[in-house]
């Protein structure tokens, strides 16, 4: 149990993680690595929800369930995104965003 660690330490951690994810999303060119950056962003948001729940409103479980639902949405989003990426690769033989400038063959 972490009692002595201040709330700000968690928030700064999740802020840094969020912006590292944004940096990856802006600089990566491969669709799968962009998807991985999105996972980083969602994960940092989850930490925020959980920590607010634990430190500020321990009489409810709302942040806990928010995180659970975000995890489920992230899983379904990753499944659909990877299906789309594999379909794109099958049609265009590349998943670099620079080469993808049309939506169908």
């Amino acid at each position, binding site marked *: 149990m972490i009692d002595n660690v201040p709330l700000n330490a968690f928030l700064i951690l999740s802020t840094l993680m969020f912006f590292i994810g944004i940096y990856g999303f802006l*600089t990566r060119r491969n669709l799968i690595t962009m998807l991985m950056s999105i996972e980083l962003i969602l994960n940092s948001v989850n930490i925020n929800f959980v920590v607010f729940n634990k430190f*500020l409103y321990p009489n409810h*479980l709302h942040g806990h369930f928010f995180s659970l639902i975000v995890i489920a949405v992230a899983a379904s989003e990753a499944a659909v995104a990877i299906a789309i990426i594999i379909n794109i690769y099958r049609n265009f033989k590349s998943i670099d965003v620079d080469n993808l400038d049309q939506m169908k063959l």
Partner: protein
Amino acid sequence: MTLNDIMFYLFAGSILTFSLLTVISRRILRSAVYLLFVLVSTAGIYFMLNYNFLAAVQLTVYAGGIIVLIIFSILLTSHVSEKAVVAPVRQQIFSALAVAAGAVLTILTITKFAFTPTASPAIEANVTNVGRALVSYNRDGFALPFEVISILLLAAMVGAIVLAKKEKHLEVPGNQPNTNPDNSTKS
């Protein structure tokens, strides 16, 4: 500084280093493995906050499911030794500047804001309470989001299968395959 605090800073350091390596590493498969380390360290932080159920879900769904899916798709779409294309240096510099400005602004706001915790007695997030809240439809229940998320998962599963499956050109029995010239020219 107790051992728990040291553990927190250990987890935080590993999260930050591995997430930086995830976005910087030029080998795609390696960055997927670094992402796995990030997610496992996050599960460690959830364990230290006494949210055991959430940590278990994080480990199974994220580390067990999504990472395996990502690694499979990496292996399907690129060679293992293939290096990722990097963005131009100018774009990297400007992205880093924008990200640093955003991070500094957010951290300044966080440190200036006075968070006030409630004085109400805490609920322990053990499996009994979590399970009761998940299926209860009372004031603190989450039955509706639970059902909505189950329908979303079903729809995403069907959608992913439909999107990723190979298109087959089914020929209706009793129909001549080449009667329509439009069908034969389409690949």
